[in-house]
């Protein structure tokens, strides 16, 4: 357990020194502050400010999660830094979980920075403390943690570039998969075609479960049961992905 903490702490320390990450966060903050300017010129209404802000934070966090998830773990293996770590009393499980938790901490930090900027802008626009907006950002964080777990899982068997392709594909599918089933039923698809769509639905994560942005924009609270379900869904999916990643990584020749 201690080694997981050591690796997580080290991952956080290293990633926050990465200039690319700095760049993305700075762009994210600039975007949020740009909303302030836009709000006074064009957006006028608070829901519009919330919508632009939360979507922007979501977009930048997705880029950060994609960047961290597809590079950090892969680089350690590819550049052989893992040789130092795994020759010490550290199991592959501890190494992988440590990396994942470290990246989750980095994402928590960047989400917090962007959230503070967002809350400041909303408060400045007389929106007060946007608790629902904060909840929406927390839900986005859950989604991004799942996204990170998927990227690490893919990194255990593919290159960094291919991880970006696979992870982006899953990100896209994760947002349309629930709609696909509805559309297939509306179109009257049956038999094998419907079966195929349902297979996609059950295999790929349903990322729409974490979307609380629309509710927050219109100041509607997310029902507790939906919140609990999303939490449980994320936890189960992340555990399954990490379990599969560890299974592959323990058999990998490095």
């Amino acid at each position: 357990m201690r080694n997981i903490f050591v690796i997580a702490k080290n991952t956080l320390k290293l990633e926050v020194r990465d200039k690319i990450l700095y760049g993305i966060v700075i762009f994210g903050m600039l975007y949020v502050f740009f909303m302030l300017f836009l709000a006074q010129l064009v957006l006028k209404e608070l829901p519009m400010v919330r919508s632009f802000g939360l979507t922007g934070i979501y977009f930048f966090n997705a880029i950060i999660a994609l960047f961290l998830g597809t590079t950090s773990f892969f680089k350690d293996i590819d550049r052989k830094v893992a040789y130092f770590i795994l020759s010490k009393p550290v199991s592959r499980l501890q190494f992988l979980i440590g990396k994942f938790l470290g990246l989750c901490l980095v994402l928590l930090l960047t989400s917090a920075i962007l959230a503070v900027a967002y809350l400041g802008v909303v408060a400045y626009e007389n929106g007060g403390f946007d608790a629902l907006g904060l909840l929406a950002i927390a839900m986005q964080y859950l989604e991004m943690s799942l996204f990170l777990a998927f990227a690490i899982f893919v990194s255990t068997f593919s290159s960094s570039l291919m991880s970006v392709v696979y992870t982006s594909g899953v990100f896209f599918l994760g947002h349309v998969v629930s709609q696909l089933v509805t559309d297939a039923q509306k179109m009257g698809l049956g038999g094998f075609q419907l079966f195929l769509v349902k297979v996609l639905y059950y295999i790929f994560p349903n990322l729409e479960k974490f979307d609380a942005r629309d509710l927050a924009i219109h100041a509607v609270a997310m029902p507790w049961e939906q919140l609990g379900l999303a939490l449980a869904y994320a936890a189960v999916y992340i555990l399954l992905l990490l379990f599969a990643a560890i299974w592959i990584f323990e058999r990998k020749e490095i």
Partner: protein
Amino acid sequence: MVDFSHLTKAYKKKVVVDDFTLSVDVPIFGFLGQNGAGKTTIMKMIVGLLAPTGGTITIDGALSSHPIFKKKLGYMPETPYFYEHMTGMEFLRFSDELFGPTRGRTPHYEGLLKKVGIFDARNAQIRTYSKGMRQRLGFAQALVNDPEYLFLDEPLDGLDPIGRREMKAVMMGLKHEGRKVFLNTHILADVEEICDEVGIIHQGKLLYAGGVKEFCAGMPLEERFTEVVEEHEKQRP
């Protein structure tokens, strides 16, 4: 004592370590062989980075990949890579943290960095280090847990003559402290100078194990080594 018993490693049909059996119980042992002979693969199997296809490696009777044993070993990989944005001191601390609490250990890290000659660069980021400095840091991190057994893969590669002399002096010091050192090298002069015994490896097979003088039998090491390897090549079907 380190025992290799019928150790084999194959990637699909390609056998890179072939039924390797050997017992080593000397302070400094050198694996000598050409590039691609299987030296690095053996070392990676010793420290648990690779799993053998067959056979076992035991150290003092316990499997070398066992987590308890890992506390007693130090390993320096060939051409070490590091976290570029860390400083040398931070990397040592991180390496040490993986063995247990590190409070009050800073003087130990400073001592190690002085020993390998990069103390002045301790607070510089590793990305600014030269190849020789990286080798030295790789050596220092292998010593961070005061290991009983050290496995060094091409430790003198990339070092200038003074650096080589210093590192060899460190290895001799470790020998006098009672530690066991295993090193992989293809530089014959180093072997002759510091190793008590050698293992000649060629295409994954052990061709000779024993004293350097006995191996040379009055011939220069380079000449004898070439002769043994060529003889083996001739005997291959």
